[in-house]
């Protein structure tokens, strides 16, 4: 018998509020998931892209700074030449020519007709990146706050769209499949439902486990990246042109988290074997995107144009069947949320996400209820 054994004692203290009980499930689930080395490694890997994106932000901000300095230099020169001309009673013809030349340069610079430093730097870099044409107009405008606004939004969208979306598939694939399937197999649901916990609290608590990891691999790195970008900027005036980006990041995170976590948990609830849920999770992505590629391939063959060319991408079949791929649907939502597509262009993908989420949650609720009912 332990020395401090006090036998059984009653407990009649204040209990914690019921509306936060789901957090206990989440907290415990996150702690358990974090014991997996794979999850730790995936999370670490998910932070690596911010190094690359951080470097890009540094380049963009430097390029914008260079242009600002160039514009200031031109303006100073014009001021100087004007002063010289005013002082002189008989101005030389060459001085007037120099002034006129400088004013032309400034005008061209401001109109963006001359190739600015930012467009040279970004132009070279963006030439290798798909969909870069979406910010080409902004860069061509030559106005630093427009360039910054558009470039930052575009960079954050690509950050969500490419590295984080791919990492999401692996991280959720490592965390979510066992969350409910293991509870069904080990009958742990009795441990939950014998306590004052409702089914929705259980579902929300479980949903929030992968959601916490997703926030840790998308929202937090994106916000850190935003902070780095602010720090890499010349002054705090950047906040004026980029104030909306944190909100867009949050909305993009929500659009990413809710459907993916719902699907992953629904798949987990369909089986007692987490490996089957894992397999189904990856199959959803691979088969969906594979089907979309098949449609695109048929358009490529029909139109005799390369894949992803504007002709192929604007083909009605490719557009209509784009929603087959969950990846594309998430992409539609993100391009809309970051302001690179209109609602008319994105509604289909977003509708698919909403429908998938509702259906997944419905199935999840039924599956969670069924072991208790029987």
């Amino acid at each position, binding site marked *: *018998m*332990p020395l*401090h*054994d*006090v*036998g*059984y*004692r*009653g*407990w*009649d*203290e204040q*209990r*914690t509020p*019921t509306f936060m*009980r789901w957090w*206990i*499930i989440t907290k*415990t689930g996150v702690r*358990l998931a974090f*014991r997996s080395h794979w999850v730790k490694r995936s999370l670490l890997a998910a932070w690596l892209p911010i190094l690359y994106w951080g470097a890009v932000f540094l380049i963009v901000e430097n390029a914008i700074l260079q242009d600002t300095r160039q514009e200031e230099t031109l303006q100073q020169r014009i001021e100087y030449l004007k002063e010289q001309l005013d002082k002189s009673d008989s101005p030389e013809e060459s001085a007037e020519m120099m002034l006129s030349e400088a004013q032309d340069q400034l005008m061209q610079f401001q109109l963006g007709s001359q190739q600015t430093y930012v467009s040279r730097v970004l132009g070279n870099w963006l030439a290798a990146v798909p969909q870069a044409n979406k910010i080409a107009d902004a860069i061509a405008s030559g106005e630093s706050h427009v360039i910054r606004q558009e470039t930052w939004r575009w960079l954050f969208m690509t950050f969500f769209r490419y590295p984080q979306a791919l990492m999401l598939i692996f991280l959720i694939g490592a965390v979510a499949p066992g969350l409910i399937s*293991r*509870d069904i197999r*080990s*009958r*742990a*649901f*009795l*441990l*939950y*439902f*014998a*306590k*004052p*916990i*409702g089914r929705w609290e259980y579902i929300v608590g479980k949903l929030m486990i992968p959601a916490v990891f997703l926030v840790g691999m998308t929202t937090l790195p994106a916000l850190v990246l935003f902070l780095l970008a602010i720090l890499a900027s010349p002054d705090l005036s950047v906040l004026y042109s980029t104030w909306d980006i944190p909100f867009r990041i949050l909305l993009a995170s929500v659009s990413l988290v809710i459907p993916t976590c719902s699907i992953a948990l629904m798949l987990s609830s369909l089986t007692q074997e987490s490996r089957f849920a894992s397999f189904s999770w990856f199959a959803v992505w691979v088969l969906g995107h594979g089907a979309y590629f098949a449609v695109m391939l048929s358009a490529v063959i029909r139109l005799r144009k390369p894949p992803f060319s504007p002709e192929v991408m604007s083909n009605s079949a490719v557009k209509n069947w784009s929603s087959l791929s969950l990846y594309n649907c998430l992409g539609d939502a993100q391009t809309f949320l970051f302001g690179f597509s209109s609602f008319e262009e994105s509604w289909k993908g977003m509708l698919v996400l909403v429908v998938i989420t509702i259906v997944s949650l419905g199935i999840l609720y039924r599956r969670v209820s069924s072991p*208790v*009912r*029987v």
Partner: protein
Amino acid sequence: MAPLIKLENITKDYATKRALNGVDLEIHSGITGLLGPNGAGKSTLIKLLLGLVKLTSGRGMVFGHHLGVDGRLIRANVGYMPEDDCYIPGMKGIEVVQFSACLAGLPDIEALRRAHEILDFCNMKQERYREIDTYSTGMRQKIKFAAAIVHDPGLLILDEPTSGLDPEERESLLRRIQLLCEDHGKSVLISTHILPDVQAICDHVVIIADGRVRLQDSMSNLSKTSAPSVNVRLLGDSDPFLQRLTASDLRYAAAESGGWDITGVHDDLTSVIWQCAEQSGTRIQSLTPAKNSLEEIFLSTVRETADATS
């Protein structure tokens, strides 16, 4: 005194089966044994009491809270120990109990303190720091029991609490249950197939069969009505012996397990049986107490139900 649990004409239908059929039941404080054959409706009754399944018809109250309406309030005051293994893989014993306490509303630190206290009470030593996947059946039973009582519930519902325990642990657990009831005023509802457990600690017995409550009485009343009986195995011809038994006002019946179950109103039944054997020249191979009285009551109740159904 108002009953802890009061059920009136409770019916529960599943898709193809009526699990409970007009159950009327009152359970008062103390330890109550819930008995019944497999498929009798015990588990459904427990789930109903916990508010996990909805009533088809009827009404009931647990701790003054309405069934089907105040499920959360009921579960806050009830500790449930399920029959099956239920654990979260990867968790340590202490974590499971702490987690249960948190789910019931104990703050984090308090839950940990309380979990240690309860595991001490359950005589769980350093094993509490091991992952529950590595536990033996007995250890898991202890963890389930600890998780059921960690939030200090007023009513404990224990489903087969002693299954898988060695005799010593079984004895300890029964002692703990009695202690909780006698020293801390807890009420306990035990669903079990191990009738000696019920006989050892229960104040009341409820027998449920085919979805109905077939018997509901105190243990003391049930003991009174039961006549003493023994099981006798004989060597050689049994007819002369059985004739002597009849002549001595003893009743007998062939036991399913072999031999003869002999029942009578004599104070010293064993002596009378020996006398009969001597007089009839029959040799007795073994003489053991027959199935205990509760088992007899249980079996006769279940048989009556089966006969009525057929």
